């Protein structure tokens, strides 16, 4: 049908890309984000919204399963691509777009042409509101329902077990937060990083005693993700743009003015201060961690030497999990974004221990 082909072509000029960042592949993620920004392609926030599944880095077994599941969740037309080498980001995106533009239902899918797994799962249950199935206690989808647990008022109410991550917008690569939710309040939490030790050496390109440019870029990246979680898209986009400029080779001194303007704007925002006030996040509250980051960012572009040149320690995931207990989901996301655990380092640490 011609109209369908026309619409596919129109849409393919601006596909929504779901980026799956893997631990140890920060460089690939940054390259992809920079290219998406240049093209003006939106980053999808969930598989339902995505046309392109872009996996940045080599996936270990656990993350490969995650990628497979996310792929299953995406509606067609859809394209799956992997970026492992920074140099071929642009070409990969081009080919994804052209595949979408010339998409036909008959196209064999990436990863084997077999029928989709879920179509074999027996009768559909969704719209069946007449209670006609006499099966009794057989639950749809084979899943149980949430069980009871005590809430902070001492009431017994359902506790829903949800695994947050590793594919969420502005979320540390590979991190999974297994939480027990009552409503949207977290009662218990557990944090882990999937596939630690995979590709952990890719940070070799970012020297340990990093220079001011990389320090500034790293802080801008963290700031952009924090602002993204806080729902402040405009300065988040500016932070990303400055980060990309720095990584593309701009001197910190050249962007100093813009960075200072950005940090000043974030600091000045009374609304942001009011929104993050009083959210504890372990040793330091969210607001204090944000202030730290802004100060470090300013210092980095001012050419000050990095405060602690010592070896970076892996993040304390147990402390992170403790910090989100009792928080409402939005606050928990802010906590994670403020702590911003460097999951690449978890990889190195675990990898070293196994060796």
């Amino acid at each position, binding site marked *: 049908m011609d109209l*369908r082909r*026309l*619409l*596919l072509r*129109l*849409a393919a*000029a*601006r*596909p*929504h890309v779901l980026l799956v960042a893997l631990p140890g592949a920060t460089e690939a993620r940054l390259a992809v984000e920079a290219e998406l*920004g*240049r*093209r*003006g392609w939106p980053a999808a*926030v*969930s598989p*339902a*919204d995505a*046309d392109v599944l872009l996996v940045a880095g080599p996936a270990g077994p656990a993350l490969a399963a995650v990628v497979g599941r996310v792929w299953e*969740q995406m*509606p*067609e*037309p859809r394209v799956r691509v992997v970026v492992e080498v920074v140099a071929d980001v642009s070409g990969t995106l081009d080919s994804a777009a052209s595949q979408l533009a010339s998409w036909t239902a008959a196209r064999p899918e990436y990863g084997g042409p077999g029928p989709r797994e879920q179509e074999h799962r027996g009768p*559909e*249950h*969704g*719209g069946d*509101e007449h209670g006609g199935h006499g099966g009794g206690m057989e639950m*749809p*989808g084979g*899943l149980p329902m949430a069980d009871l647990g005590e809430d902070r008022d001492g009431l017994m109410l359902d506790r*829903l077990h*949800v695994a947050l991550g590793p594919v*969420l*917008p*502005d979320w540390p690569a590979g991190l999974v937060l297994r939480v027990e*939710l009552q*409503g*949207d309040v977290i009662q218990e939490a557990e944090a882990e990083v999937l596939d630690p030790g995979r590709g952990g050496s890719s940070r070799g390109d970012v020297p340990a005693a990093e220079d001011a440019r990389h320090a500034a870029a790293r802080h801008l990246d963290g700031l952009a993700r924090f*602002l*993204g*979680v*806080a*729902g*402040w*898209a*405009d300065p988040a*986009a*500016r932070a990303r*743009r400055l980060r990309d400029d720095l990584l593309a080779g701009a001197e910190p001194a050249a962007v100093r003015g813009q960075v200072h303007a950005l940090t000043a704007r974030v600091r000045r*925002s009374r*609304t*942001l201060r*009011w*929104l993050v006030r009083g959210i504890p996040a372990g040793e330091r509250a969210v607001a204090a961690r944000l202030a730290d980051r802004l100060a470090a960012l300013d210092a980095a572009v001012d050419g000050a030497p990095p405060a602690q040149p010592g070896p970076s320690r892996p993040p304390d995931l147990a402390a992170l999990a403790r910090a989100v207990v009792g928080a*409402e*989901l*939005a606050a928990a*996301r*802010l906590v994670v974004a403020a702590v911003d655990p460097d999951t690449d380092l978890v990889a190195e640490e675990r990898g070293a221990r196994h060796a």
Partner: protein
Amino acid sequence: MPEPMSAPAALPLWWVVVLPFLLVAVAAAVVAADASLTARARGARADVLLPVREAGRLLVGQRRRTVAADSVLWRAGGAVLPVAAVLAGVVLPLGLRPVADLSVGVVWFNAMEVLAWAAVWMVGWGPNSALGLVGGYRFVAQGLAYELPHMFAIITAALGAESLRPTDIVAAQRGLWFVVIMPVAFVVYLISATAMAFWGPFDAPVGRDVAGGAAAELSGVDRLVFAGGRRLLLVVAVALAVPLFLGGGAGPWLPAWLWVAVKTAVLLALVLLVRRRFPTIRADRFTEVAWIVLVPLTIVQALVVALLVLNRGGAG
């Protein structure tokens, strides 16, 4: 009772067909303008075809249904949003006359926009998804915060004209736009209108932090209807501020319909810019402010206007 003034009748009936297209066109313009602002911040090119691309993309996209989803409520919720938005839009004076000149126009408007409560909750509930549920519930919490200030703001405008009919409210501003005597109600109205369309900075129900929240599991035409309905709701809610506070089609030189268009465009631009100035305001922070700052403020505003009306009534 206000004198039975020579109230302009409603537009001819065929306008009911034009109205949805008109609103969709404005909503598309809003999408394009918003996206071009976003592109500018990121250093990319703007794209005027963007609303067409997005709509086309969702039309050819596959729909999906989650395990054990409540399809009835899920789909109904999405469809209610555009229907409610257009039905709320029938009382908008497009120039001098609205599509339906209801004597209880502003109450009708209020009743239709409140359907968003049900719609967003149903869309969040439907897919049997934890993040969707959180999004749906966030909107109800937000509604509990913005709805009372919203009602008081509308009532204040109605009080100024002593009529619930939007055309009467416009007529009552012949001498003085209501924004002058009720600035607080005007500002609160705009705040609550953006909150009702869960538009930034009140976009927590479809927030990034919950991967799209209520909309997280929507794809294909379901997403198109929901997202389109949300834009329509924003356009209609903001557009009603023109007859309520900005004198409707009043203005020199230009015809009334053009004035309405210009004023609406200015307000929409304002809303788009404000969204860029603020991070997402979560309902847990906003509720108390809404109740103990906005509600008393709007009540005082209503009192001031009531005294002005009494004064005027005494003179007449």
